[in-house]
């Protein structure tokens, strides 16, 4: 089986989808001739022509607004916003329009649309190229939100997102594009080639939305993570020796509550991790759900390890990033609590 980076896997998902369905169109800033600033759409314009893969003006409102019109027409647009940090001009179109077409028209119009956007930090991107705005999407009824953590899932989830009848926000952790980053920024970069989840089938496969996967089985504490934090969690667990169960959520909405509740019921402890800011973050929702569904199994308060409630700094990136040291400390603390 071929090995792919996350970029190659995403490109392969787009390629397979465009090959199978003429209605799939791909566009965004620098997406056409050049193939995207992260190269995810490289070669697609050459292969499928300018009417299926093209450059867009720098207007996120325009990119998403036109894509909604195309989706209503019957196409399956999969657009790229160059950074998740740039999505705010499109937010009205996403929240008031894409998310609500089906509902407000009672199914007369629908919006099968995928909005891809690189998310998260760890690349010295400063506050405008590092944000993780997933909670701004999970708070919106009518959207699905997906965050893959590896090439195999990225391809399968993106294909599933493109085939989904509703709008899907597809957040790509940019620090994972070229390798499985575990938060140890001072160590040499690891390539995807050495990781088992870089084995990606060439053809079509869909990874169902709304299904989490257990990356490590353990008995003492459940760590809920997604995207880059899955790798940070696995490293922290390894380094502390705590027998933790690490769950990769993959889809934040719809959420696989069953897998989460079964794990916490077993372990009795839970840590939620994300790179996004703490207050009103998706971790708050996870924490509340664990409390509601697993209260009588809990032996300690649910903990959150997240980015600080500040803009994402440039020079102090690694003081901001919730790396394995911070998570390791939380793992030790939760095992001493209760």
């Amino acid at each position, binding site marked *: 089986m071929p090995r792919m980076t996350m970029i190659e896997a995403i490109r392969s998902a787009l390629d397979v989808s465009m090959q199978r369905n003429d*209605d799939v*169109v791909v566009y965004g800033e620098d997406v056409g001739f050049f193939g995207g600033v992260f190269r995810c759409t490289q070669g697609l314009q050459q292969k499928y022509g300018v*009417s*299926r893969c093209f450059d*867009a*003006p720098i*207007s996120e*409102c*325009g990119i998403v*607004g*036109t*894509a*909604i*019109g*195309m989706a*209503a*027409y*019957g*196409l399956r*647009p999969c657009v790229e916003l160059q950074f998740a940090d740039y999505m705010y*001009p499109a937010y*009205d*179109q996403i929240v*008031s*329009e894409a998310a*609500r*077409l*089906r*509902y*407000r*028209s*009672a*199914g*007369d*119009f*629908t919006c099968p649309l995928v909005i891809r956007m690189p998310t998260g930090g760890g690349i010295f991107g400063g506050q405008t190229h590092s944000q993780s705005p997933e909670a701004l999407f999970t708070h919106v*009824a*009518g959207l*699905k939100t997906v965050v893959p953590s590896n090439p195999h899932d990225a391809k399968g989830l993106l294909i599933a997102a493109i085939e989904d*009848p*509703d709008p899907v926000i597809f957040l790509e952790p940019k620090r994972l594009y070229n390798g499985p980053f575990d938060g140890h920024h001072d160590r040499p970069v690891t390539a995807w080639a050495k990781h088992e989840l870089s084995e990606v089938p060439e053809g079509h496969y869909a990874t169902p939305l*709304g299904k989490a996967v257990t990356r490590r089985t353990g008995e003492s504490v459940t760590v809920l993570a997604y995207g880059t934090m899955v790798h940070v969690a696995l490293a922290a667990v390894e380094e502390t020796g705590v027998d933790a169960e690490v769950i990769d959520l993959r889809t934040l*909405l*719809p*959420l696989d*509550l*069953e897998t989460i509740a079964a794990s916490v019921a077993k372990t009795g402890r839970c840590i939620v991790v994300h790179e996004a800011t703490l207050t009103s973050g998706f971790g708050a929702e996870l924490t509340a759900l664990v409390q509601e569904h697993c209260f009588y199994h809990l032996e300690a308060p649910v903990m959150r390890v997240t980015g600080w409630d500040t803009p994402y700094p440039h020079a102090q990136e690694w003081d901001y990033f919730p790396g394995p040291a911070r998570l390791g400390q939380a793992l030790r603390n939760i095992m001493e609590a209760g």
Partner: protein
Amino acid sequence: MTSPTPLRFHVPEPASRPGGKPDFSGVSIPKAGSVRRPPVDVAPEEIRDLAYSIIRVLDHEGQPIGPWVPDLSKDELVAGLRHMMTLRTFDARMQMAQRQGKTSFYMQHTGEEAVSCAFRIALGPDDMNFPTYRQAGLLIAHDYPLVDMMCQIYSNANDPMKGRQLPVFYSSRKHGFFTISGNLATQFVQAVGWAMASAIKGDSRIAAAWIGDGSTAESDFHAALVFASTYKAPVVLNVVNNQWAISTFQGIARGGSGTFAARGLGFGIPALRVDGNDYLATYAVAKWAIERARLNLGPTLIEYVTYRAGAHSTSDDPSAYRPKHESEEWPLGDPVIRLKQHLIAAGAWSEERHKQAEAEILAEIIAAQKEAESFGTLHSGSKPSARDIFEDVYAELPPHLRRQRQQIGV
């Protein structure tokens, strides 16, 4: 050393406010028939003047004059008059129903009936409008059932929108009428995307975008113009300038640009300005723009110069922000009266036939209203199910919504 000139902050004001005399001296009205009609493949830079003029067909006596006189039969014009009369009567009945507490909200079209009624006739059956809340003529002139419109307004058990939308926020794919949003201007750029999709697929359908003068200030409007211009999208970009955005006069959104039509010029989009109270001129200009779109010549921006004779909605009182009798002074008159006058002058209509038509239309609307009310009104009779709250958020009900639906026991 000279002292610096103090800078002045400028806030535009309308010509007249409540208590003042209506003043439309700033609205320059060219003679009917005086504006040339260029071929549809004209280069945009050759018709820049048309963005600053007003295309008019009907003169003061109701005679059609000049190069824009459209090819519409007497029967078609009588049908057009009936569409406008139906819309006006429908509005009056629904406005009253709102005052009677049968619904929460209503928005009338008074004075603007020609714009949507004439445009619909110029459009093909498979084309798609992306309307605002004041283009119900697009439905009425396309034979959408009045009962269904009323059921939507009443949010009753037969409401096609299942009680989820504010009154007048209709949707009908079958009738080329995109679901209405209350977030202004969002539809303008979606229309461009719909048109792009049609071109990508090599189909022959075109889109029509709709927006009011006030909402052209939204970024979506400008994004729509960029995308329409860049991809030469087969779309007609309609700006209905009815002079007032709730209480804000059109000068606040227009700023220093002479007209809303002129906004198209910087994008290389041909821009026409038309008398929106002249059914014939509106139809002719719509037809011109639609033909351009069909011939792969790209977008056209049209500004319909009209006047909102009524309130913005049932929630505001215009006498609080403009002279009470301003609408009577509007120099482009009333679209229903003008078309009626034309048809009488042409020997195709009479005062008697008009009265008779008024009575027939009123009877038809009262019958429709009775039927609609038999399915309930907002506060009485049958309602959409609480179950409908949870349907259509997604194609399939996800687990968290299933749990929430169980909580209210439906």
